[in-house]
């Protein structure tokens, strides 16, 4: 099977529904394993930070979720593009399945970030570049989700949300850049210590956790996409068969 025919077949919901099942399982197990290992490394093996004590360990949740929040939005934007240009039903389903996950990652990043902020900066919130753009990202997610669900006809909702996601995807980097620039001109970066070098014993669990989060997301998104597909295609023959059996 050539790559082209593979993608062509992947676009067909029944085919995807069929092949995604084992993949989902595999992702779930790999993700679980990586997360356990990462957490063990991060919460037990890594030494306490000489400045922050054990507080820094919140990083092992915060950083992967912040990273995932951006990654998932990219996935949504790419899927939206594919959906709008090539009219691939699967792409819309993946985008719709991803949006709530992305919003959840963003929320976790925001909450853990503020919790971490209290000991670090003495307040839960500062108007910093990263924080602000993360918040905007959160609102964008909400917009995409609400828009998608607001229409009676799923296809209309998909397309509307896709347009928003694409405009938003252009916007997110600009926001990030703009806020950064806006802040640094006035007041020095509020937290310079943050980006300092991280000791290897702290770093590897972080990387493992990031990979774990990726697989975890992969599993969830496959699972959700499958149910999205079933819902969307409920009156087609293949879905009837799946539901029947």
């Amino acid at each position, binding site marked *: 099977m050539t790559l082209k025919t593979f993608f062509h077949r992947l676009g067909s919901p029944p085919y995807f529904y069929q092949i995604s099942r084992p993949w989902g399982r595999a992702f779930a197990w790999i993700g679980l394993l990586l997360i356990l290992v990462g957490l063990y490394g991060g919460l037990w093996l890594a030494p306490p930070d000489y400045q922050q004590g054990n507080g820094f360990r919140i990083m092992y949740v915060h950083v992967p979720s912040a990273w995932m929040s951006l990654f998932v939005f990219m996935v949504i934007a790419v899927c939206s593009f594919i959906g709008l240009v090539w009219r691939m039903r699967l792409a819309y389903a993946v985008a719709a399945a991803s949006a709530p996950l992305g919003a959840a990652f963003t929320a976790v990043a925001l909450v853990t970030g503020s919790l971490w902020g209290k000991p670090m900066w003495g307040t839960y919130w500062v108007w910093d570049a990263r924080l602000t753009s993360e918040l905007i990202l959160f609102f964008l997610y909400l917009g995409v989700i609400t828009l998608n669900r607001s229409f*009676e*006809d799923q*296809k209309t909702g998909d397309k509307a949300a896709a347009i928003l996601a694409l405009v938003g995807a252009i916007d997110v980097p600009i926001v990030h850049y703009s806020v950064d620039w806006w802040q640094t001109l006035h007041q020095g970066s509020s937290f310079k210590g943050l980006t300092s070098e991280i000791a290897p014993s702290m770093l590897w669990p972080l990387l493992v956790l990031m990979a774990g989060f990726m697989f975890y997301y992969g599993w969830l998104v496959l699972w959700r996409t499958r149910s999205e597909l079933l819902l969307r295609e*409920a*009156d087609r023959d293949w879905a009837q068969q799946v539901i029947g059996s």
Partner: protein
Amino acid sequence: MDRGAGSGLEARALELRRGRRLLARSLSFGVQPGSYLELTGPNGSGKSTLLRILAGLGRLETGQVFWNGATFNPQREEAHHARTLYLGHTDGLKGLLSIGENLRLFAALRGIREPIDEIEKGMGFYGLEHLKPIVCDRLSQGQRRRAALVRLHAFPAALWLLDEPTTALDREGVERFFSHFRIHLERGGMALVATHQSLARWIAPAGEIALGRSP
């Protein structure tokens, strides 16, 4: 690529849906120049839905439509929009503009310059001259409908898609509409007309598309 049978508009194996409800399965019909089809069926059977799809508003999911034998997508094809006039349940008049201004705006929409004469004639035809200075918000129901029908008069098009065109018209208005309709057909025009009254007593249709309550 499939080919249609011949001249005029033809539809083959259309499926009508509204949300999850299937309104008609495998609908096929054709209309030749100089004739029209009556679109009948009880309330909620999908007459308006069908007209909207043919006009290019709704999405055509299953089935094909042909124009003079060539298949086309009513949503994308500009040539189709140029040869078609669609008149729905709403009158398509801006309430803050007068009838004349509304019609000139519609001319701009169809890319026509300076259609003043045709508009004047159309308004005269429907007896609307005395309403020239009045904004459409202040018209009675039937006056609005007449104003909407002037479009058919001022902007010739090969295919009319009309959704209960005679609603709210008084008897004289109905007569006028049909006298113009007759001319349209004589000139080789086509039409699909959704209706609840039989139109045969005015002009005999070439056929009927009878939609039933959901199958």
